């Protein structure tokens, strides 16, 4: 009991060296690493790192022109705040990938290419603390950056970051991963090595992300050739919505004083400048948050190796 309460207490406070999310406003968040004596500038003023240490997460910090919240790091907020070295996957695709790959605590996963590490953090959350992530990329600078991110976020002992072109050199693994995910320009060239990397005698899951349908065709053909089953391809599209309110006029007859009974609670009765009766009704409804939103990111292909 004491241990549990103590653990909760420690886990709830901001500590030096941790990565936290500074929430400045909607879709204006920043990931910072807490360091003693450092400061963070934002549009409402300055945030001193010393003020954060040993405060609970979720606290409001007042600044000269407003306030900010400091939130606990999680992969969804990291996806929104991380520095982009590549195009990244967003939560709508990431959530489907983690779900379709059947990831759980202890799963061993291989991912190529790692890119900016957006998907990697969601994978690590799902498999921690007993799982493992083998991360591959062809770009050394990207790998170094991602390795530093893993170190900062406490995942260094669960990740193995490797510089390799898996389409040419393969994964260098044999019979040890539960799931494997590819975000590559030519994923069909890596499927032979992917199959070799998967555990023997157990069903293992495969996933691939490709923007173009021709890539998907070649990938599915290769999956079929190497004996994968349950090959499924899908694409996802999310709409971000917002709640709107409006007031609409209703027609009024001069003779009748009858009100629309159904909407009496939302009805507004006023008079205009000429003294005529006016009826209005309030409506609440959903509209897209922006008229233009992403309609395509890529196709997701999933398959199972049975034995």
């Amino acid at each position, binding site marked *: 009991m004491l241990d549990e309460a103590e653990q909760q207490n420690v886990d*709830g406070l901001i500590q030096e060296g941790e990565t936290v999310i500074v929430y400045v406003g909607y879709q204006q*968040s920043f990931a910072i690493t807490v360091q003693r004596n450092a400061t963070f500038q934002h549009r409402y003023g300055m945030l001193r790192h010393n003020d954060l240490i040993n405060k*609970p997460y*979720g606290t409001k910090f007042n600044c000269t022109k407003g306030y900010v919240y400091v939130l606990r790091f999680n992969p969804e*907020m990291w996806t929104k705040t991380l520095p982009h070295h590549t195009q990244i996957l967003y939560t709508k695709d990431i959530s*489907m990938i983690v779900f379709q790959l059947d990831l759980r*605590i202890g799963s061993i996963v291989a991912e190529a290419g790692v890119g900016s590490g957006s998907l990697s953090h969601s994978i690590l*959350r*799902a498999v921690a603390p007993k799982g493992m992530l083998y991360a591959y990329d062809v770009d050394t600078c990207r790998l170094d950056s991602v390795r530093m991110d893993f170190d900062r976020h406490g995942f260094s002992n669960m990740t193995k970051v490797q510089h390799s072109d898996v389409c040419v050199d393969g994964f260098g693994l044999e019979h040890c991963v539960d799931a494997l995910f590819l975000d590559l320009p030519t994923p069909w060239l890596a499927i032979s090595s992917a199959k070799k990397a998967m555990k023997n005698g157990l069903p293992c899951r495969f996933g691939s992300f490709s923007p173009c349908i021709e890539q998907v065709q070649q990938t599915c053909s290769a999956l079929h050739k190497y004996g994968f089953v349950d090959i499924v391809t899908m694409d*996802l599209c999310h709409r971000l919505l917002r709640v709107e309110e409006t007031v609409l006029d209703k027609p009024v007859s001069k003779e009748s004083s009858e009100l629309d009974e159904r909407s009496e609670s939302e009805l507004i009765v006023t008079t205009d400048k000429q003294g005529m009766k006016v009826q209005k009704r309030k409506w609440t409804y959903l509209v897209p948050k922006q008229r233009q939103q992403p309609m395509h990111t890529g196709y997701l292909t999933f398959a199972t190796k049975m034995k």
Partner: protein
Amino acid sequence: MEIVEGSYVIFKRGNTSRLTRIARGQQIVLEKSKFLTDNLIGQPYNQLFEILPNKHLQCCTETELAQFLKSEGFDANGVDQCDELTDYSDQLSQSDTIVAEQQCNQTVSFDELKSLKSSGASGDDIVQVLIDGSLSYKRKTDLAKRKYVQRKRRKHSAYVLVMKPCIRLLAEVYYHKNPAKLMDMRPDYFAYLLSYANIQHRSRVLVVEDCCGLVSAAVLDRSDGNGLCLQLHRGDQCQSIPCIEAMQYPSSIMQCYRKLPMCVAMDELSGNGEKSDLENATYSKHAETLRLFKQGNFDSLIIASNYDLTSVIVSLLLPAIRPSGTVAIYSDVMQLAVEYFDVLRTSQQTVELELIDSFLRYHQILPNRTRPNMAGYFSPGYILTGIVVCN
């Protein structure tokens, strides 16, 4: 791990799946094939079985599995194709004209087919006989031939996949069988809800659901016996747990699962004075769970319920979530989603509120026949997500 009597398995044949609890003497009907499940007892999961003429199942050999995979048996497209529609109508128009003139293109009679089946011919042999007996087959285009063979093979194939239930398969099986039981929560909505709930090792999650226990089962699966899943439910008995039963979690995981009637949680907070003996008995039964609820400090709140909680979410549920915890709400009623949004926004206890809906489409990927599936599922669902803060 082996299948025993009482185990749950998922059968998959063609594009149809079924969740079943194994019992002796049980007969299953799946895509017009009947088979008995007795022979499964003692077998491992995740294998391909052949349905023998006596309706028992026999485990396939490696060569049979390899041969099966070479056929197009598993070009699963997620949703059945509409066989009535004709692809490539321009190419086929001349052939169709000729074909239409024949009243009957199949020389194999129904009786002959029936006797073939009862004599124990394999599915592949039956398909071959039908192809040989078809007058129109040779005149079909290559693509039409493939489609013909695929349809016959699907009908006469004697194979069934036997799989161990997991959250992904349960979500898909329940959704395709009766979406209303999951509140029309399509797998992509479900995946998004779980992602935003930020479930991990040692997560403490507060759940309110009407989805056959699928959400609670997924929470237990992802936290793996090291956290807490406390489900608030309507009435005295929790109705919503078949998926948890299907997952057959060991006791090390089930120890993290608690159920608490909503009325108990609410009454305790309001501090009503007098209680009847029956009420006292109810409270005694739930005392430990109530203590856990009052202790609060949950990492996330998941709501996937048609229970209208807009009046209590701020006063009862949000205080139980620790600051910087997450809220993820699924609703298949638009007005309810709007009201949750309004209530949470007004409370000033949440930030990064987002309301989304989702569109999911499956694709058929075959050489020269790549296209979106012609039929799919539209879901009326909405997901609202946010992060709890101190105010």
